[in-house]
């Protein structure tokens, strides 16, 4: 405390130390709030999934050297209330619909792909009740064909905090769908659908 500069340094050093403690308090308390609100077991209903397949030859749809690549899209309904993910440390919630599946030529290959996602920044927008919305992405696989694969859909979320660790979780409730054959898909737009 012996000179102006040194007094300024001690104040700012200590201010930074306390700021770190405050940040830790914010991260920890908001995490406890999430647990208290059962944020890790939010139910979600993904239903009425209608997959379609088509063939693409562009590089931006996974085709290499013009080889035809099967691409898959969806339409689906979604009902989920993500309000519980919001507290004072939630900057945004990134919610995304993913599908897991195995390879057909090489069954040891596991894949997970995103069909749809949404950024929610306000608690008032967190109640999702969507009907017959289209997938955002056209999905292709490492293999050329996707037809006949069994897809397990999950709705996952990621909380981006204002300060602290990123938090990931998924909603409760899976949905399994078998992709149609290419011919079926072209003839009639009604695919097979299994629910679990």
């Amino acid at each position, binding site marked *: 405390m012996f000179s102006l500069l040194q007094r300024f340094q001690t104040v700012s050093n200590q201010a930074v130390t306390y700021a770190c403690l405050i940040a830790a308090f914010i991260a920890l308390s908001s995490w406890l709030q999430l647990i208290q609100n059962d944020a890790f077991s939010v139910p979600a209903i993904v239903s009425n999934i209608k997959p379609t397949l088509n063939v693409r030859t562009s590089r931006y749809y996974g085709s290499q050297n013009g080889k035809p690549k099967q691409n898959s899209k969806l339409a689906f309904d979604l009902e989920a209330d993500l309000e519980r993910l919001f507290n004072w440390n939630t900057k945004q919630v990134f919610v995304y619909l993913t599908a897991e599946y195995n390879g057909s030529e090489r069954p040891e290959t596991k894949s*997970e792909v995103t069909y749809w996602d949404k950024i929610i920044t306000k608690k008032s927008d967190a109640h999702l009740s969507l009907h017959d919305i289209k997938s955002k992405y056209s999905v292709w696989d490492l293999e050329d064909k996707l037809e006949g694969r069994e897809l397990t859909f999950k709705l996952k979320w990621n909380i981006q905090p204002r300060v602290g660790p990123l938090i990931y979780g998924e909603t409760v409730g899976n949905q399994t769908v078998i992709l149609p054959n290419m011919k079926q898909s072209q003839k009639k737009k009604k695919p097979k659908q299994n629910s679990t």
Partner: protein
Amino acid sequence: MNIRLELSRFLKLCFVLSSAFMFWKGLSIVTNSHSPIVVVLSGSMEPAFQRGDVLFLWNRNEMSKIGDIVIYEVEGKSIPIVHRVLREHHSETKNKQLLLTKGDNNAGNDIPLYANRKLYLQKDKDIVGTVKGYVPQLGYITIWISENKYAKFAMMGLLGLSALLGND
């Protein structure tokens, strides 16, 4: 005798620099990432990350999960990119994983950004780290200094002044 005095004084300066550097190096060895703390430079992940936000990375995970926000480097480009994993394909037998990424704020995926007309990133080769922690805006000082020449001069002047006026 005076040599020892000068050496002792110089050693203090060495300690300041070496401890800062070795802390960084230690962090990068523990996290297995060559730059364990990064500052966001682009707005392609808004509103999650803005320019100047500080990200803490971890790179000991063998596989990335879908939805993870990863930092990757493209051959021939110096600036690392912070984007989200949109798809992942991995083999259960071989330890290899392919990733497709996308910026939250971008319309399309990152295929146009990848080197050599590749369609995927490789987890073990291209990924610098996965974002685990976040502090907003703290890194704006570094951006400001590196991009604004007046700020650069002001900073240099301030450092020079404090070195001259400081007591060491």
